[in-house]
């Protein structure tokens, strides 16, 4: 088994190379992905290796997604890169009204076997049009699969699963994690598009998170550990399909639930998680659940402002402490 220590973005690159090698019908396209090797390097070297199966497109996101759909239902296996998650909105009709409908409305006669890769989130200085976390919009759309990779291993495995799947899958990567490294097994078994994962265990509180926020939760968790509070952290990985079993199991033990995501709170997917847990096992909660997301606001460019809105590890830790010890007394 070849295990390599590689960055998140390199893991994406390896998954794409794997797909091109494995599926002769796969193609990869997007803006600057071929000759320039990808705006973030995700497609580095692929044009050179796979020739015209990797190609550049004009800045035409609607046409790009529609092209992926038409090609998919004609037997290709397209992977289209949308440079920033914010630009999904330019192609929203194609994603929702076209891609999501194809299989169901055709009663299975059309197979929209395509993957849309993008990256999202705020980084210091990024403007309001390049910093949103928009997964909730897509997790509400039946017919789409939606996943967020919080680390290099998942960046590799979830993308492979997405490309292998017969369903249309939207993968949100995180550019602020692109440089983070992990040991990735390149020839492990192919995963399915499903499954959340317990990434840390603790008996005091269950924290559900996904995407880049998972790493902030883990940072906060370390701070909590030092204060004697132990959190189970569930990385949801896929919002669709939604696997809440590990969450239910953990909440049954901890009695306390927090959901953390980088998207702004109101209307975010955190509400769905809270609702499901309460519907399923409300009586087992010993405290009101807590959602920790960005404040409901546009994302300002100034780092001092965005930091005040985002769910930073400090804020996460503070809110978790309040959840565990609501009186303000130190828990230990």
């Amino acid at each position, binding site marked *: 088994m070849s295990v390599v220590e590689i960055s998140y973005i390199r893991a994406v690159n390896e998954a794409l190379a794997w797909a091109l090698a494995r599926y002769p*019908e796969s*193609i990869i396209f997007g803006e600057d992905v071929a000759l320039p090797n990808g705006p973030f390097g995700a497609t580095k070297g692929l044009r050179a290796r796979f020739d015209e*199966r990797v*190609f550049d*497109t*004009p800045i*035409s996101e*609607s*046409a*790009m*997604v*529609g*092209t*992926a*759909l*038409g*090609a*998919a*239902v*004609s*037997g*290709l296996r*397209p992977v289209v890169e949308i440079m920033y998650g914010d630009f999904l909105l330019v192609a929203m*009709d*194609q994603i929702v*009204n*076209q891609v999501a*409908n194809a*299989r*169901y*409305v*055709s*009663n*299975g*006669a*059309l*197979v929209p076997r395509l993957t849309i890769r993008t990256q999202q989130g705020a980084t210091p200085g990024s403007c309001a049009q390049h910093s949103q976390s928009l997964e909730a919009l897509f997790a509400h759309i*039946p*017919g789409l*699969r939606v996943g967020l990779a919080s680390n290099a291993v998942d960046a590799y495995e979830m993308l492979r699963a997405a490309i292998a*799947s*017969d*369903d249309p899958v939207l993968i949100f990567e995180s550019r602020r994690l692109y440089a983070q490294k992990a040991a990735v097994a390149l020839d492990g078994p192919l995963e*399915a*598009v*499903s499954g959340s994962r317990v990434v840390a265990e603790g008996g005091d509180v269950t924290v559900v998170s996904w995407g880049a926020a998972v790493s902030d939760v883990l940072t906060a968790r370390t701070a909590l550990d030092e204060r004697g509070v132990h959190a189970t952290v569930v990385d949801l990985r896929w919002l669709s*399909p*939604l696997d809440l079993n590990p969450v239910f199991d953990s909440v049954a033990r901890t009695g306390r639930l927090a959901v953390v995501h980088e998207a702004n709170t109101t209307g975010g997917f955190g509400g769905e998680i809270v609702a499901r847990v309460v519907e399923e096992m409300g009586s087992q909660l010993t405290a009101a659940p807590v959602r920790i997301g960005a404040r409901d606001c546009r994302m300002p460019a100034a780092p001092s402002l965005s930091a005040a809105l985002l769910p930073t590890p400090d804020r996460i830790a503070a809110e978790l402490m309040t959840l565990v010890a609501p009186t303000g007394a130190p828990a230990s």
Partner: protein
Amino acid sequence: MSTLEAPAHLLALYEQMYTIRAFEEQVMELLRIGEITGSTHLCIGQEAVPVGASAVLQASDAVIATYRGHGWAIARGVPLAALFAELMGRASVLCDGRGGSAYFMAPDHGFLGENSIVGAGVPMALGAALARRFQRRDAIGLVSIGDGAMNQGAVHESLNMAAVLAVPLVVVVENNGYVEMTPSQALTAKPAHVRAAAAYGIESVLVDGNDPDAVGAAVERARATAIGSQRPFLIEAETHRLVGHYSGDLQAYRPPGELDAARLREPLVRLAATISDDEATDAVRARVARLLAEELDVARRVPPANPERALVGLYAGPER
């Protein structure tokens, strides 16, 4: 074409166009008596476009139409009974009642589907065409849109992208004079849509959309260009819709005399005049009427779409 063949060829075109016409007249009746529910968009008056085009298309070509797509589906060979059943909300072999009049698919017949978002079928057709090029299938993606659809951004993105990526895409603009209830010229600055094509370096042609042979010749040329030189092509077909935009349209916007004038130029009347053999055309119409009655009968025996299947097949993978 010999003098003997000519009438046979023309009669075949007449039969196909009349089949579409009679099918849609039957649909109007089914709407009236409540066997079809929901708003429906008929292509009455525009039959020459799908019929002329389909005469030269091959099974490997992919066609996408709009909500006004019954004619395209029929011309591509979709069985009438199945289509009736689909429109009637029955468990049809097409989409099991999920598509309805405005959004059904029949990929087995080279018909990737209708589309009810104006202009949105063009990107998809671009992808279908691209796939055919990758697969070296010597086939095209053809999309029919209305003239109003030329004002949707996605259409322009696709035209440019098809040209840049060298994709065998053929766009047929059915210019029927109206964009819903607004005359087309009030909404489109371009003197002709072919000019738009030129801006992308795309070859194009303006044809009489009420003449199936003229449409066929244009599609033949477009197909040859698309496959031969991997270049997209645009056809503007001038025609006229003889009914309302949708089933409930009262058409108060029509200037007096417009419809009467249009009826003189409409494809069935014109082709019957060319054929000039009442006996033959009467016979075609009688045959089609019988066929339709039978097909409708078959459709009526298809059970209503089964509510227990309403949630089936949203995903290929695990449902939840």
